[in-house]
């Protein structure tokens, strides 16, 4: 009986490892190949050497990437765009969810239903009308001492940020989480003379850490990974994010070592960030967050 149980759990562990190997091998292959010259990548492909940092290992591919692509500029752009989107997204969406969850606002039920309705509209269907629409929007620019108004948001930073700040899914996640925090806390704070914004900032938000971690990651990932949208609305090289850099490698006689180096360069920061927040993220989704 005990042996059968041990065999069973050994088998389960073997399946776990098999799944882990399938999930990890392409990423491992990418990282290892980025350190090798092209000739060796192809030479190592038929053996386990493809996954081992052996042979002629160097950072030459990375140096070449910075020559071919304005990679530093792209990285700075993406970090800025993602950071601003995440910070503003956390603030605006949690504020909205707070009022919808904890305050007696007339008509909030209608507003909440309308917000949730946006979840069924896939972004791809909005993208093209949205391009036309942002091209009609006014744009204020401070030029010296005079305020200039020009038309069209195409080819700017804000066109990559502002449309993605408000997010129905983030509002939904915060709303779910706020519902689980006892409302007596608000009452107590109100008796102490606190205003609504103070309750939001000093009572409710400090308790909503796991929800904030989840919203931060779920906002950061699409912001960092966005490709279709900047492809359509940003032409200037100095405003482009990292994913567009991929286009610089779509040509004949591409060096695959350099491609793998660029791919690693734009993936590793996200992976590091994810591993740092991993515990609170997966656990918070798994324990409360997303429930049908």
């Amino acid at each position, binding site marked *: 009986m005990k042996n059968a149980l041990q065999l069973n759990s050994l088998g389960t562990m073997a399946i*776990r490892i098999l799944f882990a190997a399938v999930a990890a091998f392409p990423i491992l292959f990418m990282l290892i190949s980025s350190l090798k010259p092209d000739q060796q990548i192809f030479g190592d*492909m038929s053996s386990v050497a493809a996954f081992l940092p052996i042979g002629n290992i160097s950072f030459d591919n990375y140096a070449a990437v910075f020559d071919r692509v304005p990679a530093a500029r792209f990285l700075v752009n993406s970090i800025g765009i993602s950071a601003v989107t995440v910070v503003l997204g956390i603030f605006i969406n949690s504020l909205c969810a707070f*009022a919808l969850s904890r305050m*007696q606002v007339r008509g909030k039920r209608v507003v909440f239903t309308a917000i949730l309705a946006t979840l069924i509209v896939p972004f791809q269907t909005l993208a*093209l009308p949205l391009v036309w*629409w942002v091209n009609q929007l006014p744009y204020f620019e401070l030029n010296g001492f005079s305020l200039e108004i020009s038309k069209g948001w195409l080819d700017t930073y804000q066109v990559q940020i502002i449309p993605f700040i408000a997010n129905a899914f983030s509002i939904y996640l915060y709303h779910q989480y706020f519902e689980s925090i006892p409302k007596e806390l608000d009452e107590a704070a109100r008796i102490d003379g606190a205003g609504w914004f103070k309750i939001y900032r000093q009572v409710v938000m400090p308790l909503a850490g796991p929800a904030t971690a989840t919203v931060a990651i779920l906002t950061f990932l699409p912001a960092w990974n966005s490709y279709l949208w900047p492809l359509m609305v940003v032409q200037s090289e100095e405003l482009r994010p990292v994913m567009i850099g991929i286009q610089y490698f779509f040509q004949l006689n591409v060096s*695959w070592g350099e491609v793998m180096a660029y791919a690693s360069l734009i993936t590793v920061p996200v992976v590091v960030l994810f591993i740092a927040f991993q515990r609170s993220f997966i656990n918070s989704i798994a324990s409360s967050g997303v429930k049908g």
Partner: protein
Amino acid sequence: MTTTQLPSPRRRSTASAPVRPPLNPHRRRPRYLREQISGWGMIAPAALLLLAFVFLPAILGFGLAFTNARLISPRPVEFVGVDNFARLFTDPTFWRALLNVSYFAVVVVPVQSALALAMALLINKKFRGVNFFRTVYFLPVVTSMVVVSLLWMFMYRKDGLINELLSNASFGLIHGPDWLNDPATAMPAIIALSIWQAAGFHMIIWLAGLQSISGELYEAAQLDGASRWHQFRYVTWPGLKHTRTLILVTITIQALGLFDQVSVMTQGGPLDSTTTIIYEAVRSGFKQQETSYASAISLVFFVLVLLISAVQRYLTREKD
């Protein structure tokens, strides 16, 4: 949702009016008004942004589909009726795109949800190293689809890693095709990498469902001598009812919106064997700047998504 355990002060006035007369409106007014103003002030930023960047473009797209608008055009926008739709429904590329997306969805929806459930079951209970496995399983999701597509494009070459692995595993018997340049294998190749990338996300949703099933149910089942299969069949599976619907709808919408992989790897080729609805919309709207035609494609896509979600919700509804 509609009946709360602790009725709020405003609701109480209707729910238990005979017990307590309504408060004097004059005494209540300042606090009530302040709550309304602060509340709307807090809701407004997010609501206005959603209005401007989701509702308006959606309505605009609906309208533009019936015009001849172009992204940059000297001519004024004119109403052209259903011309765009007439052109769309007689375009063989559109029907091919619809067929490709259906093929993709029919394979991806069941396979990906099953694999994601298997992964969730493997890491549901706590054991030594559970966090390691959870992280590794989720790693492909963190990697952008664009990077994943580029990486797999390299692995799918005739002399690439996939064919070398196949050849090694079969002792040199299998010589794989040039995956992405063969109309017969290009779509299956895209299907495989899509499942690889996205399964981890749906694993998390399954995991949320699994964690919400009470452990006492399993204890009771074990006392009754239920086998592992019976525990799954009679405790886990019914407990995942709501999660199943959510997974089904989200994977289907994601599958119908197939775009990034195609844009990076095949540009719809070879011979239109991988083109999709969204890819056609972007190609006409962005490359050819025909905003109106692209809006018509988007509208058809939206109606399709709505129809399929509605049918799925109807089929998985609670029967009583």
